[in-house]
């Protein structure tokens, strides 16, 4: 039996002191030698638990074997047969809790760097062939039309699969570019927008018709789409309604939801103001409230926009933070200051109302709450003031209610999420499926993609039965 190689090849990254002054990708990607070295660590174990760990069932050992054999076109083919957006997943999937956690070598604390290899394969494809010319067999058109609402990860994945199955897909996107949170939420230094656009173009090249500036629920309702020739509808509208603290002073100028902050910075390219028109002025002392990936993204953007001090203010302790460990480490390396067990209670404004201070209270951890994490309890008498001139509230999102409000017969949960079958994505309304954050609440890109895949399969079955 060959000796196990437990040396994970590290990912080359930009130096923290350099990268806080630019929006370029932090992770630079493997070289071909590094990729081969890492890929050859895979022991091709017969059980391959990694595949079960993957929400879209990628044939992981096979594409890794292709890398070791130097057969990159084969690696691309295997990867893309299950995952239409590998350049994105390779960058933003929390592999450490998915395929890599299941990896046999994880028991030796040296799981295969599956994510880095996925990224390597996707980047190789982009660099070596024109993205549009993908080797897809044209399928016989079925004559069936599907409306996909939302062009985020769930919608794009469902569209790609449905188009490959021969159905005519029309994607309705509310914003002026496609990609959803991939375009407006995840910063350039984690997920370059050029890559997102390439993946969107790929989905369109499969035969999907993309309609931007189209807000379903306003310009047309779901019922109108169904009576105007669409045989089925997939809802992938996401969790896009920001949660605020509802603390006094929260509407002072200088206080942003993370959605607004990131939309200005990432989607509207506020970091390139005034070359781009949308302003994103940043103060000297920025507090980001929250402990998830969005909070890390916001804090790291604030730094790059020119803030002198950036704080993450989180009400629990480091151990409970839901953000990817890798992103927390990146943020700490970049000099972001973490204030744990701290919760804001209010905001104070200066002249012209601009925020100038945040009232905080220290917290301690009590018994676990419904999320299973220990409940944060304020410590009386521990109130203090933080001088800040910009605040970003990154506490998560509720589902955007527009579709639910304008569609008859669509059951929603108490939280506003659309009720849908876990396996098929079927909703309570005939001919309507749903997946992604609009069903689960804010979650990950990859789980949205998995939902898109499952819904596409279910829609396909339904459409074939119609004929």
């Amino acid at each position, binding site marked *: 039996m060959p000796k196990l190689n437990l040396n994970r090849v590290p990912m080359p990254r930009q130096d923290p002191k350099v990268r806080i002054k630019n929006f370029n990708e932090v992770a630079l990607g493997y070289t071909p030698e590094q990729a081969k070295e890492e890929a050859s660590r895979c022991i091709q174990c017969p059980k391959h638990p990694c595949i079960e760990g993957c929400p879209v069932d990628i044939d992981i050992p096979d594409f890794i074997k292709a890398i070791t054999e130097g057969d990159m076109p084969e690696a691309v083919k295997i990867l893309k047969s299950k995952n239409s957006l590998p350049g994105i997943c390779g960058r933003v999937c929390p592999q450490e809790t998915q395929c890599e956690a299941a990896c046999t070598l994880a028991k030796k604390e040296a799981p295969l760097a599956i994510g880095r290899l996925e990224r390597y394969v996707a980047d190789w494809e982009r660099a070596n062939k024109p993205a549009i010319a993908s080797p897809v067999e044209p399928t016989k058109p079925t004559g069936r039309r599907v409306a996909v609402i939302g062009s985020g990860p769930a919608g794009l994945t469902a569209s790609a699969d449905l188009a490959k199955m021969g159905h005519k897909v029309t994607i309705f996107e509310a914003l002026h570019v496609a990609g959803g949170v991939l375009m407006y939420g995840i910063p350039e230094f984690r997920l370059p927008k050029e890559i997102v656009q390439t993946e969107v173009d790929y989905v369109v090249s499969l035969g999907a018709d993309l309609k931007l500036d*189209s807000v379903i629920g306003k310009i047309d309702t779901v019922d109108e789409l169904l009576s105007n020739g669409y045989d089925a509808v997939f809802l992938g509208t996401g969790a896009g309604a920001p949660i*605020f603290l509802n603390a006094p002073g929260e509407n002072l*100028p200088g206080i942003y939801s993370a959605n607004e902050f990131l939309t200005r910075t990432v989607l509207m390219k506020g970091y390139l103001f005034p070359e781009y*028109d949308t302003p994103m002025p940043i103060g000297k002392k920025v507090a980001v409230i929250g402990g998830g990936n969005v909070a890390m993204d916001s804090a790291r953007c604030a730094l790059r926009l020119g803030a002198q001090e950036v704080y993450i203010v989180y009400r629990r302790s480091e151990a409970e933070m839901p953000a990817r460990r890798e992103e927390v480490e990146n943020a700490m390396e970049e000099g972001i200051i973490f204030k744990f067990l701290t919760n804001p209670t209010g905001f104070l404004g200066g002249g*012209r109302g*601009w925020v100038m201070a945040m009232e905080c209270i220290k917290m301690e951890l009590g018994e676990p709450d419904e999320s299973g994490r220990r409940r944060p309890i304020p410590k009386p008498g521990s109130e203090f003031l933080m001088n800040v001139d910009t605040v970003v509230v990154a506490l998560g999102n509720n589902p*955007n209610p527009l579709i639910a409000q304008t569609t008859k017969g669509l059951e929603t949960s108490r939280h506003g999420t659309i009720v849908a079958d876990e396996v098929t994505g079927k909703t309570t309304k005939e001919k309507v499926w749903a997946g992604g954050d609009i069903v689960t609440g804010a979650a990950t890109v990859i789980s949205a993609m998995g939902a898109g895949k499952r819904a596409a399969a279910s829609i396909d079955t339904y459409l074939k039965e119609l004929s």
Partner: protein
Amino acid sequence: MYKVLLRQDLAPNIHLFKIEAPGIAKKAQAGQFVMVRVDEKGERIPLTIADWDREEGSITVVFNEVGKTTRKLAVLKEGDFITNFVGPLGLPAHIENFGTVLCVVGGYSVATIVPVVRALKEAGNKIISIIRAPNKEMLFGEKQLGSLSSKLMIVTGDISFDYDGFIIEPLKEILNSEKVGLVITVGPTCVMKLVAAITRPFGVKTIASLNPIMVDGTGMCGSCRVTVSNKTRFACVDGPEFDAYEVDWYSLMARRCTYSGDMTPKLQYKCRNCAQW
């Protein structure tokens, strides 16, 4: 891409554009708005739908040149294209028979209130209108609004330092002499705030169409959040109409100044060259 079908200059720096947008034209209702992005590097701004033609497939917007985007728009000619035009957004104006409706408008909002007034008239309301314009040169739309109103008052006067008191007496005069069921007001923020203060002692239902800064316009970012009855509301999905007595006007005015290019705190809002106009 959305074609500019027609442009008219209504007053210095105030323009009317008719844009080809059949999908929006089919669904537009009084009180709704569109989000506009002029070009690939442009920002997104809200503009009220001033009118629509469902057959022609067009939407009319009227705007004042106050910032980068409105200035970029102002140089477009008939036949040019706007990159993005999204709508119809916001909740439509609430239309009911209130008996007599008093409409108080200022600035370029004269044009944008017309569909709402038209709908209110069709619902059986008697309309009285007050138009506030800085001077005769900046006055427009009075014929259109006048034709819908049984009484029209025009109030002009250059905005004095920090204070626009010109509408106070005309407004009180009407409230004292007529039984008004509803006051609707659209225009510069401080005018709307003042209208609410004047009508409050009369106890007349007063609705304002608010004008916060917006980025997406569909409820996803919270840029347009306003405090109404001590609760946070998003003007783009809960409004843009709100009960004028319940709006926190200072908060709205402060948030509207966020990008006026001056981060140094100032104690007063100066009316000349103010971002609120």
